């Protein structure tokens, strides 16, 4: 089974028509890959479906806007993979999706 990172990299490549080999774990979805909010919405749908979760995008955005988090925590792909793993673990533990 492919890693969470590989799955989201594949989703981004397919959704945004970005060559898969240009996507790296250190890539920032917005700053490096140039993904805009509309494309990210499409990516969020694909990720939600693939992992059976509801990524709390609005909560994350609020945290960034309030200065409580950086965009790197959520939008650097290896970090995004970690966040998704946490959401999947929370869901499997029956603790909800964190949204």
């Amino acid at each position, binding site marked *: 089974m492919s890693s969470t990172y590989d799955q989201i990299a594949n989703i981004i490549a397919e959704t945004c028509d970005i060559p898969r080999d240009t996507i790296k774990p250190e890539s920032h979805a917005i700053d490096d890959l140039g993904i805009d909010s*509309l494309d990210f*919405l*499409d990516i*969020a*749908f694909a990720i*939600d*479906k693939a992992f059976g979760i*509801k*990524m*709390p*995008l*609005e*909560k994350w*955005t609020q945290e960034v806007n309030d200065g409580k988090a950086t965009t790197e925590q959520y939008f650097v792909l290896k970090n995004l993979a970690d966040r998704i793993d946490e959401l999947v673990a929370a869901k499997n533990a029956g603790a909800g999706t964190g*949204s």
Partner: protein
Amino acid sequence: MDINYFRLIDRIVDLNLDAKTIVVEAQVPAAHTIFEGHFPGFPIMPGVLLTEAMAQSSGWLLLGLLKFERMPFLAIVKEAKMRGFVSPGQLLTIEAKLEHEGSGFAVTKAKGRVGKELKCSAEITFGLSPFPDPNFRVYMDEMAKKIGFPLQAVSNG
């Protein structure tokens, strides 16, 4: 259907908040200037209007599910298929189903039929935002009453 005001939905036939589905009817006008150009001698509903009708149907479903607390704005249309011609005077029945509710967005699937014949379908994504203007919300309430939106289903939910 009031094409001039882009009000494409005439009435809500069924809204099921548990199943997250809606069925609406839209009466295509027998005559409109659009049909003079689209096309001379062969008037048919433009695909963009069928797509908009599917989006508006989905929008009313989402308004019900969101209890009118947020407004769905059209963001992405995928797999829009115009499967057959829709002519002036025909009654379009559109059904929409919630496919996914994400954080700040929702995805529906919609289908439009004339009689039993499938005429159009699409997967539609909406951004969900607070109403940007209180008058907008008042207008949507008025429209809801006009098209028979079962407001009690929302208040009881």
